[in-house]
Structure formats: structure tokens, C-alpha cells
């Protein structure tokens, strides 16, 4: 349950932060939430990963749908991986490690 709450809070808070601030500030958000929730390391990592990953995927998917994939198809030819996969992975990794750091800081 606490896992799901962390995921949802991460999505909401990081959405707010990122609307106004550069991409990496979501790491600060994810770290703070990880600290506040106090989940175990692994759980916190997964929650951060899924939270930011879902947020980034969702935003990207929304833009892709509203613009009829006009740019997605082109950028897919440019990148080594599909741009959705890469976007989700990169957002998730940073969000996950930040959440892990938050959880570990609380446990010390």
C-alpha cells in the first residue's frame, strides 16, 4: 500500500515540479518523497522508477497522440532505441536512484 502511495505521490509531485523546472529537478522530488515515505530501499527504488517512468511515458504518450506521432517516428530513426522505451527508462532510472537515496538516508 505504501508502495502504491509513493508511486502516486511521485507522479503528482514530479509533474508539478517539472512543469516549471528543468528535467533533473524531478530527482530532488523523488528523493524527498523516498525519504518521507520511508519504504525499504528496494521498494523505494521501484516506486521512484515506476512513478517517474509512468509520468514520463504518460506525458510523451499524450504528446504523441495529440500530434499524430509526427515527430516520434522521425526521432525513432535517430535514437538507438524506441523513443518511448528510452524516455521511460531514463526517467525511471533517475527517479529510481533518487528514491533509493531518499529511503537509504532515512534508514541510516
Amino acid at each position, binding site marked *: 500500500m505504501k508502495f502504491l502511495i509513493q508511486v502516486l505521490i511521485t507522479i503528482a509531485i514530479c509533474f508539478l515540479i517539472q512543469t516549471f523546472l528543468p528535467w533533473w529537478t524531478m530527482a530532488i522530488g523523488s528523493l524527498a518523497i523516498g525519504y518521507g515515505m520511508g519504504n525499504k530501499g528496494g521498494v523505494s527504488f521501484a516506486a521512484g522508477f515506476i512513478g517517474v517512468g509512468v509520468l514520463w511515458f504518460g506525458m510523451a504518450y499524450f504528446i504523441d497522440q495529440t*500530434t499524430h506521432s509526427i515527430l516520434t517516428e*522521425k526521432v525513432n530513426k535517430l535514437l538507438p532505441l524506441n523513443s518511448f522505451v528510452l524516455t521511460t527508462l531514463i526517467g525511471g532510472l533517475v527517479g529510481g536512484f533518487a528514491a533509493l537515496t531518499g529511503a537509504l*538516508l532515512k534508514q*541510516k
Partner: protein
Amino acid sequence: MKFLKPILSLAITVALVVFLNKSWNFGSPIPPLGKFLDPFHGFWKNAKTSEVENESISLSGLTDKVSIVYDSALIPHIYAANDNDLFAAQGYITAKNRLWQMEFQTHAAGGRLSEIVGKAALDFDRTQRRLGMVYAAENAAESMESNRIAKAMVESYTKGVNAYIQSLDYEALPIEYKLLGYEPELWTNLKSGLLLKYMAKTLNMGEKDLEMTNALKLFGKETLDLLYPDHEGVGDPIVDNTGNWKFNPVTLDSLPLAEPTELIAIQPMEKVSHEIGSNNWAVSGSKTATGSPILCNDPHLELNLPSIWYVVHLSAPGINTMGASLPGSPNVISGFNDSIAWGVTNAQRDLVDWFKIEFKDKNKNEYLSDGQWKPTRKVIEKIQLKGEKAFYDTVIYTHHGPVVFDERFHGESEKNHYAFRWIAHDPSEEVIAFYKLNRAKNHADYMEALDHYGSPAQNFVFACVDGDIAMRIQGKYPVRRKNEGKFVLDGTKTSNDWHAFIPNEHNIAYKNPERGFVSSANQYPVDQSYPYYINASNWEEYRNRRINKILTELNQIKPIDLMKLQLDNFNLKASESLPTFLSYIDSTQLKGAEAIAFQKLSKWDYYNNKESEGASYYEAWIRAFVPMVWDEISSSKVALPRPATYMTIRLMKEKPDLSFFDIIETPEKETVKEVIRKSFSESVAVIEKWKEEKKGDPTWADYKDGYVGHLLRQEAFSYHIKHGGNGSIVNAHSKSNGPSWRMVVSLEKSGIQAWGVYPGGQSGNPGSPFYNNLLDLWTEGNYVKFIFTADVSKMKEKELAVITLNPIAK
């Protein structure tokens, strides 16, 4: 120890963020992935729909409100209350749609590509610096700033561009900046100058003086005149005014030039494609259905995305003009207003010379001139390389211009140094010429406007609602002695310098000729009674004849007839060479693929239409034939010029035993017959291989594989297109060169009717539907009917969106 885990985890997080916030190069460049993929600010945000939002923006320096109305093709119709506001708005809206391209092209012009793409561009950048591109642009910017009108115009334009640049955050940056991980710098007047010089370079640098010097030494004068005549004497000149050149020409009293007797082992610069050229014509009311003149223009350039052209409509008190503009430069370049229309093709003329320099010693502080040592000027060019230390290059300037080739750059030894004299180095005021053309009301205004135009020399076609049509070949041309400019020149004698220029009133021009039309297609410009010596690196021999034939035949002309002419795919070159080719082939001896090829070629109607297979077989054949004939030239140790294809075909018919037809690497002695037979087999083999690879029929559009490439050569942002035509054909579309803008203007008294299209789109953003919205139209041979009204209220139902620029209240 309990701190270890969180610290380690924090370190990984920070390292990830830092890593993903930077561009990398692991063999191929990687954008800053975190920044780039962030769906809140990264590339995702560059994806757009065809809906464009209304905007209201404050722009400092405006004196009044400006309305910019986008029509459904995203063409901006700019309505301003005065000139300065108009040009600020043109700068703003052009930057909004084309900023990355504007900056990239000026970086290319000024030799700064290495900053963006790294060392791969170093040789290119050094060439630009050594050709004096920045020197030329500085002279241009200086003369713009010394003219009141030009200064106000360029400064307003720059202000508009910068207002847009300053409004940008990362999210709004064009995708190319995000991809390459850099940011735009502020625009300057110098950049507008650089852009015009870049165009001048494209149009002037087909020169081959070094190669001609080598050819003179190796082949001798007689062969030289046979292979590379000053002009081929085919077709009509652009202006035939025989016997009516009523002025006393400027003459030079110095001695004729000594012809050089040297071989130059320098590797010359990459040449601009001969497929760059253009068509324009105007037909008089006596030949049209409405009784009003019609004017057409299609400049042929390399076809890129974002396109070289941006269509704008500029309206303010005293001006109402529309047409193709160059992003980065104010005004309309090829277009029309309420009274007149005009268009441009390249005048070809030789406006480039190379002077051999003798330095006193290795320090190159002094050079010989008329027996005296004159001081040089040294300019240190700093070329910033992406991710590396800067590269420094010292360029030596003489009174001729910069020394391009020396032992440190493409040179052969310390002996040969060549300085570059180019008309575009001289101060000039092209922006004034276009400013005035945009406002011209009649022939006299057009003539006065062109008096301000220096370089690159152009054939300016003209038509007016009052019924006049005209052509003027305008530029600043040095007065030349016979043969001057064909070879390298001795730079130690000032008698070889450019001493005088042809006065504007002696330039080739005429008005309302009896034949009822004027036209130009880069051919030889004038009849034999014109009193000045003219030469060029090449003249066009085919398009002009086809255009003049059709225009002579047509009567009761409607705009659609001239659109058809712009799209005419008749291959005159093939019609003049293929029958001879085929006559040398004994078809009874042919088998398999060769027999089929022969049949397809025999039945071909000489039209390079999309579906034609004959066109592909012919093209493959001529591509095999020409290099086989000139094997002596391509295998030479020193650079030599390749004769024109027209001359190759003429020699094939007139001199079949010419020694050049011998293939040097075979022991036998070949004549035209064997070369034709051999090249036929070779070309059929090429087509067979193509068929095997592509698993299809070699229809012309597929075989040609038309390509409109993004300026970064980024495949993802480029398109392959299926279109007819070819070089030397009126529809001059070869693989990646061709009609970069097609315009047809009917100058009716009841109101101008105008159509135009170009292979691209008004937006430079690959994520916008307007990135390529005109490309399909162009490919299909369609045009946009332009909306052209000085009354902003009439735009109401036609608007896609309105951008309002407001002055900042004081």
C-alpha cells in the same frame, strides 16, 4: 559505515543526472539524453499539430502595432504602420519559423561549422575563411551601415530576430539545438551580410581557372578552343539587341596578358554543381489570353530542408509586396507587388580570379608588385572545434585579396601561392536594390533599383501591369581583355589587376522586344555586337532553347500553360544525342538485357516523365559515356576541367576520330563507335544491377531517387521524392538539385494573380505539419494560389492565426 550506502546511491544519482545532461560522442554524437527526452521540455515539445495559436507579444523598439496573419499554408502576411516595424516583424516571424537554419547557414558561410559538428568540418571552415567570406561580409555590413535606409532596415530586422531569440527557453528551442546540445547566439547585421555572400559563393564558384591553366599547358591553345570555347554559339542569347549598343565602351590601354605556362598541382576546391541554374521569362500581353503580361521564375539550387526560401507578404504604407525571401535577409528576393513582378536567374559571368603571388621570404610579410615589395596584412582566423582546442589559421591578404592556397592549405609546395580576387569582396548595397524593387511601380523604378545591385550578377526579368516586359543582366563586372579571367594571372604586375568596371548603363538590358517575350536560362547573354568581352565557366545550352521554342509557339497564353512549361520534361539533350548513339549499335547482334534496353531506348519519346524507363536507360548511358570519353582528364595527375556535355555530344557527331575518344588504358585505338558500344554495355549492366537491388522496374523517378535532405544530412528529417525532369531539362530537377521555387505571376490591371510553391514548408520544425506541407504539392506539380491584399480586414476568413506585435508602452 552506515553512511556508505546512501552516499553511494546519491553519487550514482548525481552521476546519472550529470551524464544525461551532457552531449557525448561515442563514435556517433549522442544528445544530452535526459534533457532531450524529458517530455516536459525536451524534443517531445517540438511536436506540433496544424493548429496554430493566436499570440500577442510585446516587442521593444516598435513604434506601432504590427499584425502578422498566417494563412492556411503558414505564409505570414505582415501589416505594419511603417518600414522599421515591418522589417522588425519580418525578422521576428522568419526567426520564429527558421531560426536554426538561419544561424546554421551563417555559421557555414563564416566558417564556423566546426563549432557545432566538430573537426569533420575543419577543411570546409578553413576554405570559407581563406576565401575571405567574413572579410566580404564585413565589407557588406559596413556599406549597409553607411546607408541610411539600409542601416535602418537591417537593424530593424536584426532587432526582430533577437527579440525572438531572447524569448526562447530550452523548451522552445528548435530541435536541432536540442539534438546537438548548443544554443543560438544573438543575430547581427554581419550575419545578414554573411548570408548574401554565401549565396554569392554558391553562384560564382563554378570557376575553373586553375584547371584551365593546366589544360592550356597540356593540350595547347588549339585543343583548348575546341574543347572549351568561350561560348558554343547555340540558341538565342538572353538579349539580342544587335547593332543597338549605342555607347562608347570602356577600354583598357594596358598590354594584353601573357598566358601562363605552368602546371598547378593544387587540389582545387569542391565545385558547385553545374545543375545549379535557373529559368525566368515574361511574356507580353500580346501573347496572353488576358492581354496582361505573365512573369515566371524558377531558381535551381540544391534542394534542402529547411528550404532556402521563405514566402512572406510585406505590407506597410508605400509597400505591398510578396514572394520568396531568404531567411536571414530583409525584403523579398523573387516576387511581385501591386504593379510589377520580377525574378532572377544566375548570370554565370566570370567574377573570380586567381593571382599568383611572389613573397619576399618565408615570413610572407612582403610580396612583389611592379618591382617593389609591398606589405601584406595577416589575419589570424580562430576556428573553434566542438569539444577540442581551437585551431588557428593565418590568412595573408594582398591588395588582390586573401591568399587561399599556400603550403599550409591544399598547396603543393612553398612555390605556389594564389590570391583570390572576387567581386563579392567589394562593398555593395544589394539590400537597397531589393528594397527599391519591392516598392517599384514601373520600368524606370526597376532600372533605378537595379543600379544598386552588385553581386552575384543576375538576369533580372521584369513585367509590369502597364504592359512592359524587360530583362537586365545586372551585376558589377570587371572590364576584361580577351581571354582575361580564363587562366591564373601573374599577381606581380598591377597591369593584370581589375582596372575598371562596366558602367551600369552599358550593362546588357532590353525592354519589350518584338518577339513578345524575354527569357533567360543561364545561357550566353548577348549578341555578338555587344562591345565587351564576356566569359564564364559554363553556359547552359538546352533549357533556353526549349523555353524559347515553346514561348514562340504559344499564343493566348494562360498561367496554366506557363506552369506546364515550368514542369516541361522534354529532354533536348537526349533528342540530339540518342539517335547518334543508337545508330552506332548493331541491334541484330544484341541479346537479353541489351536487346530490351535497345528497344526501350528506340521507343522512348525523350520525355523524362516519372514513369519513363527510356529516360533511365539514357541517363545511365550518358553517365557511362562521358567519363569514358574524358578518361584523359579524370586520370590526369593535375586537375583539368571536364568539357561541357554539350561539347562532348557535338564532338561525337562532328569529330568521331578525335584522339580523346581513344580509351587510354586499352592497347587498341578506339573511336566514337567503340566508346558508344562499350558505354552501352556498361550502362545496361548498371541498370540490371539496379533492378536486382531494388527488385523493380527502372522508372525514371525511382532510378533518379530524388532527395530533399535536411541541412544536417539527418536522414530522419529528409525525404525521398518521385518527380520527373533532370538537369538540362526545363523542369531541372536532378537527384538533389532543381527548382527551389516556382512562381507564376499574371499582372492583370484588375489585380495581380500569383501562384508559387517550393519543395519544403514554411516551418523549419521537423515536428510541424508545415515542415513539408509544400513538398508534396511541388512534387505533384501543383501551386499555391497566393492571397495578396493590402487590406488586413480582407484576411478575416482566410486566417489560420494572428500574431500581434505590440510596442512596449513608455
